[in-house]
């Protein structure tokens, strides 16, 4: 009786070594290929060729003009929205945009207001994105996005 019991016990012991080897290999593979991905999103800009847009644009519906000026290092020195000087304050820009276009949702068939960004050539791209963020909306107290201007286009590049 005792002999039998010992034999059975030995049979039940599986050899784990090879499995653990593979499992560790898999683990090392996944750890090495792991990369924390930052969440990314897009600002959509619809810009057909200038000739086409002139043909279809309405004279009464002129876009707002945002002018961004930079120093030689590419740092923002001043902004102006429709000739209103805003300094380098993006909250002021947003407040002005709200004042000009309001926070009402545009009618379904209308596209809403349009803004044209005219920037100095050497301005850092991060400032442009910051400006686009300020004009296209904001997050309210409940973290909901309130949209302001959805149609964004660029003026001709300045050399």
């Amino acid at each position, binding site marked *: 009786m005792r002999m039998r019991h010992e034999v059975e016990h030995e049979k039940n012991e599986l050899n*784990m070594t090879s*499995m*653990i080897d593979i*499992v*560790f290999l*898999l*683990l090392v593979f*996944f*750890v090495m*290929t*792991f*990369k924390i*991905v*930052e*969440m*990314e*999103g*897009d*600002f*959509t*800009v*619809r*810009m*057909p*060729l*200038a000739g086409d847009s002139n043909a279809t644009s309405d004279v009464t519906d002129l876009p707002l003009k945002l002018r*961004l000026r930079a120093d030689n290092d*590419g740092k923002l020195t001043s902004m102006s929205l429709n000739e209103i000087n805003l300094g380098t304050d993006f909250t002021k820009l947003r407040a002005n945009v709200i004042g000009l276009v309001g926070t009402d949702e545009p009618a379904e068939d209308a596209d809403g207001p349009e803004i044209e960004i005219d*920037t*100095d*050539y*050497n*301005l*850092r*791209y*991060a*400032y*442009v*994105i*910051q400006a*686009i*963020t300020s004009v*296209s*909306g*904001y*997050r309210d107290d409940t973290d909901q*996005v309130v949209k302001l201007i959805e149609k964004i286009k*660029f003026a*001709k*590049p*300045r*050399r």
Partner: protein
Amino acid sequence: MKVKSKKPNLAEGDLTPMIDMTFQLIAFFMVLINFSQTESNERVVLPSSQLVKPPEKPLEFPIILHVAKDGEIILGGDSYTTETLSTGLRRELAVLRAEKKSPKDANVIIRGHQDVAAGQVQEIIRVAQDQQLEQFALRAKEDRS
């Protein structure tokens, strides 16, 4: 003698918890692994924005342009300048036309470095416009602060 023979048994530790943990780790890394690494480029540090959200569905017919700090444009692994970019874009558009789509259906995703000159991005848009492309997406990383 009987006591001695028991010693090897003591050395055999219970591997079950370790294997459990290892499998959990594998499951964790497997779920989080990102296969779409071709979309990113280590030379590009995106500007951040509080408004952008990851898109609910991927953009149709994307043409991804990475713009490095020095203005070099990377499209499909090849590097271009604003002067030579049109050749690369034409190649992409040939693929698009083979699928019976027009350039207007394509989405040009611009992943610009945060310190690149804005004029450089404008030039890229102008070159793309010359190829009849008209839908652009300026990519930024989500800023949750």
